[in-house]
């Protein structure tokens, strides 16, 4: 038996945004958008999705844009993780996103997998989540009725659930540029290098002036900010006793489960250690020291 797909569907490839909007208006929940397919094709094979129509958006030029205008970075829906990693702007100005992108699967998956597909699949373990949450990214949604912007902190509603309406699609993501010195770290725990989803992911961004942003994935139903930890840390210099307090607080903010990939207890234990290492690395990087971006902290 090869990996055939037994489910049958129609395949459409709109040439421009108007056609895409028309298709979505016409087919609504019967249709699924096909981007890199690294998530969707597996879901169809497994029988978790059975769309009547697949709408391949890779023929729409506008969605391939990756643009920085000095104030913000626009990442179009078709931009892949490898395109982000290869972008100098991302590496230099959004190192947390760069580091998180490097942690996704392997080259052959990242050549197809898109950041927007990652947030639309909205699994609790999505690696782009913590970085986008820390950067306060805005998601641009479009439909026949026009455009709306949703802060990423309000985008996820539950596992595989987002605010996306049935005839809407994600046009792209807009990430504001932080024009102050900052340091960051994405710490990902996987079972092995390459191809594995996060068992715990912690993303930390420290901005000059003692502002801390902390977000997590894979330890709750949705990726989210750890607001209590942030409140505790904000305005303070990082030291050992502060880190100990933060580690106690993070436990209150996460609600990991036991599944085939890790137990709840292990996840809690590791989240504390990863918070500590991430905070130290982010502050060191802010001060021009610390491990290089991309170096594994765990």
């Amino acid at each position, binding site marked *: 038996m*090869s*990996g*055939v*797909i*037994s*489910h*049958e*569907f*129609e*395949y459409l490839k709109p040439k421009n945004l108007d056609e895409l909007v028309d298709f979505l208006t016409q087919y609504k929940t019967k249709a699924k958008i*096909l981007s890199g*397919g*690294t998530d969707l*094709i*597996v879901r169809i*094979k497994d029988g978790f999705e059975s769309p009547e129509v*697949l709408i*391949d958006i*890779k023929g729409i030029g506008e969605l391939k844009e990756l643009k920085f205008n000095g104030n913000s970075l626009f990442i179009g829906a078709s931009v892949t993780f*490898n395109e982000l990693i290869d972008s100098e702007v991302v590496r230099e100005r959004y190192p947390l996103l760069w580091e998180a992108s490097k942690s996704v*699967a*392997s*080259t*052959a*998956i990242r*050549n*197809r997998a898109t950041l927007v597909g990652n947030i639309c699949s909205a699994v609790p373990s999505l690696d782009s989540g913590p970085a986008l949450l820390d950067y306060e990214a805005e998601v641009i949604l479009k439909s026949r009725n026009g455009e709306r912007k949703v802060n990423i902190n309000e985008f996820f509603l539950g596992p595989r659930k987002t605010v996306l309406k049935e005839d809407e699609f994600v046009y792209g993501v807009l990430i504001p540029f932080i024009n102050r010195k900052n340091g960051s770290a994405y710490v990902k725990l996987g079972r*092995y*290098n*390459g*191809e594995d989803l996060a068992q715990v992911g912690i993303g930390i961004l420290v901005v000059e002036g003692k502002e801390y942003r902390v977000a997590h994935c894979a330890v709750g139903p949705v990726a989210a900010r750890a607001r209590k930890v942030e409140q505790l840390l904000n305005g303070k210099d990082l030291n050992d006793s502060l880190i100990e307090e933060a580690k106690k607080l993070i436990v209150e903010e996460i609600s990991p489960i036991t599944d085939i990939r890790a137990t709840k207890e292990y996840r809690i234990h590791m989240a504390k250690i990863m918070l500590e290492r991430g905070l130290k690395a982010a502050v060191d990087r802010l001060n021009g020291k610390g491990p290089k971006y991309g170096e594994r902290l765990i």
Partner: protein
Amino acid sequence: MRKISFILNGEKRSVYVEPNDLLLDVLRDKLGDKTPKYGCGRGDCGTCTVLLNGKSVRSCLILAVEVDGQEITTLEGISKGGLTELQKYFLKHNSFQCGFCAPGMIVTLEEFLKKNPKPDEEEVKEAISGNLCRCTGYVPIIRAVMDYVKNK
């Protein structure tokens, strides 16, 4: 059924496919190129890796209709003129037992070494981290790549 056309290993090929046909199956069963292997069918093992416009991708996660008008290179194309230098180093170091993972490894390394011709060992490990080998424990594979890189 619809007709798609694409460049396979330098030659234009046309074939009739259903929307739910996977690229891997079309290459193997309809076009007779058996170099991409079916392993897991879900992107995890890397044996089905081919190059799409020069970039490594998993042919078990791509619909054949998606590659209409594109360019596909498989191991068959890479070693068209006989064994490549890298393949000779794989032979020299006995970098396979069953050999099932080898096509995916070579295709993956083809893209990687083009981008990074003088990698260190860590970078090689990272490059093939998405390709599973059940037999060799990776040591002879990495040895072959490092020897190849040193002598190039």
